């Protein structure tokens, strides 16, 4: 079984006096083909879990299993072939001097694929860009198009699991809808496992079946999307988040 298993995970940055405990004893499981959401405010440690999984946050303790491997200190190439990540800001996640073609052909080359030309065209079709975008540079693309390129790059090694770090928070709502639809379709077509981080409860509610709410590095509650939709959280903090996600409530004026 692949999927993701996280058990008693602690992640920290720095050491000694400067040590910051970003994640504290987090545990959850995501079955293969499921979609799991992590929500919380900035600094709650939700993105740090993704970074620890991918090896970008080296200081951690606990048990992590993903891509069919029990994870240790460093990641193998076969791990990166089955687990990929889409970053938050498509303006920062593409090399400013590399064309779409360079980005995808390098990725495919690193994973040892042959028939790269054909694969690039297929990937661009899969993410709804088409081959006319192949030789463009990032500055010739809109935010949504860039994020599609980033998704194509993540799909290139044909992974089973995608880690999505706020994939639409830098985009306009109409573009967000397109990207979320694309992600929904890709998951259905390729039976992907999603682990999605977002501060937007509506987005996570739309994409995920189960949701973990994080605060100050701890998971305060794991609930099903049905419970969230029914506004039946157990934890006080989740209740607060759900309420403020509905917009501004003028009643607070008197307070």
């Amino acid at each position, binding site marked *: 079984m692949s999927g993701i298993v996280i058990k008693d995970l602690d992640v920290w940055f720095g050491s000694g006096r400067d040590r910051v405990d970003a994640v504290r004893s987090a545990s959850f499981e995501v079955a293969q083909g499921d979609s799991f959401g992590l929500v919380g405010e900035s600094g709650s440690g939700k993105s740090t879990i993704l970074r620890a999984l991918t090896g970008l946050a080296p200081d951690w303790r606990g048990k992590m299993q993903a891509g069919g491997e029990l994870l240790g200190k460093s990641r193998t190439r076969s791990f990166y072939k089955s687990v*990929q990540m889409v970053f938050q800001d498509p303006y920062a996640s593409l090399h400013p001097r590399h064309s779409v073609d360079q980005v995808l052909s390098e990725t495919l080359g690193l994973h040892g694929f042959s028939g790269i030309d054909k694969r690039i065209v297929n990937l661009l079709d899969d993410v709804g860009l088409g081959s006319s975008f192949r030789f463009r540079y990032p*500055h010739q693309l809109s935010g949504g198009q860039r994020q599609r390129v980033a998704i194509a*790059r993540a799909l290139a090694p044909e992974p089973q699991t995608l880690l999505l770090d706020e994939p639409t928070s830098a985009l306009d709502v109409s573009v967000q809808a397109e990207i979320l639809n694309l992600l929904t379709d890709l998951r259905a077509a390729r039976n992907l496992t999603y682990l999605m981080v977002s501060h937007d409860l509506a987005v996570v509610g739309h994409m995920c079946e189960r949701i973990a709410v994080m605060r100050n590095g701890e998971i305060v509650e794991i609930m099903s999307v049905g419970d969230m939709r029914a506004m039946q959280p157990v934890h006080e903090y989740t209740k607060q988040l759900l309420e403020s996600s509905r917009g501004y409530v003028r009643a607070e004026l008197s307070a």
Partner: protein
Amino acid sequence: MTNPAASRNQMPESDKPSLRRWLLTDTPASRRQARLASLYQGWLTLKSNKLTMIGFGILVTLVLVAILAPWLAPHDPFAQDLGNRLKPLWTDGFLLGTDSLGRDILSRLIYGSRITLYIVILVALIAPVVGLFVGTVAGYVGGWADMILMRITDIFLAFPRLVLALAFVAALGAGIENAVLAIALTAWPPYARIARAETLTIRQSDYIHAVKLQGAGALRIITRHIWPLCISSLIVRVTLDMAGIILAAAGLGFLGLGAQPPSPEWGAMISEGRKFILDHWWIATMPGLAIFTVSLAFNLLGDGLRDVLDPKDSGE
């Protein structure tokens, strides 16, 4: 690979400036077109700056003069004619006069441009490359490698450039090659510092993280992903520093540690003319003006290049 037929189809048939259109497209159809288009965009930005174009023009002229020296020079730069020594400007076919050995100053300046270019090219090939290598490795690898490489850089930075160059030349022996080597050895540390600083910010960016997640190694990340971004700011710095490098070479020549007589190196020419500066001012002034013009040209070009190449601006 690229399909030439496809790219040709993209070209508008009816429009007259179709090449321009093809180059300005936002939808390049081939790798070649994409490259050429981005070069052309840069050229257009460069072209819009008048001062830059003046600098660029001067440097193109310098290169042409150096290449065509045998045809342009009215006299043999080494031919001594003691009967015609110390002639002032505009006399007997000596446009810029003659020096103390009766050699035509204009011809010497024209041949001297070759030496200047030689110095410029060699230094530009050595110093930034060393700096780029040291800086990016130190910045990316970090830890002990960073410590050691940067302390070495600091040692080089601790000496005034000309003094250090003097020491090198004294150790290696006088001569133009050794002067170039000495200048290059003293010029790289600032580039290493710049490259390291840039690497430290680039290293933290998402696109480097993204390529790490494809299993790319340090060597590939440094050479394919970090270098292209550092190179542009280094080119700008080198261009702006060129004036200083020419002056350093001229300084070494002036002190007799660079080009040796009878070589028409501009600095050495000033040095020779110094003895006569009160009565025959042009002998030292003409090579001085040449140095000034070329230095200025590099500075003007460097300013324009910064607008085009600086990743902070062009990243948008």
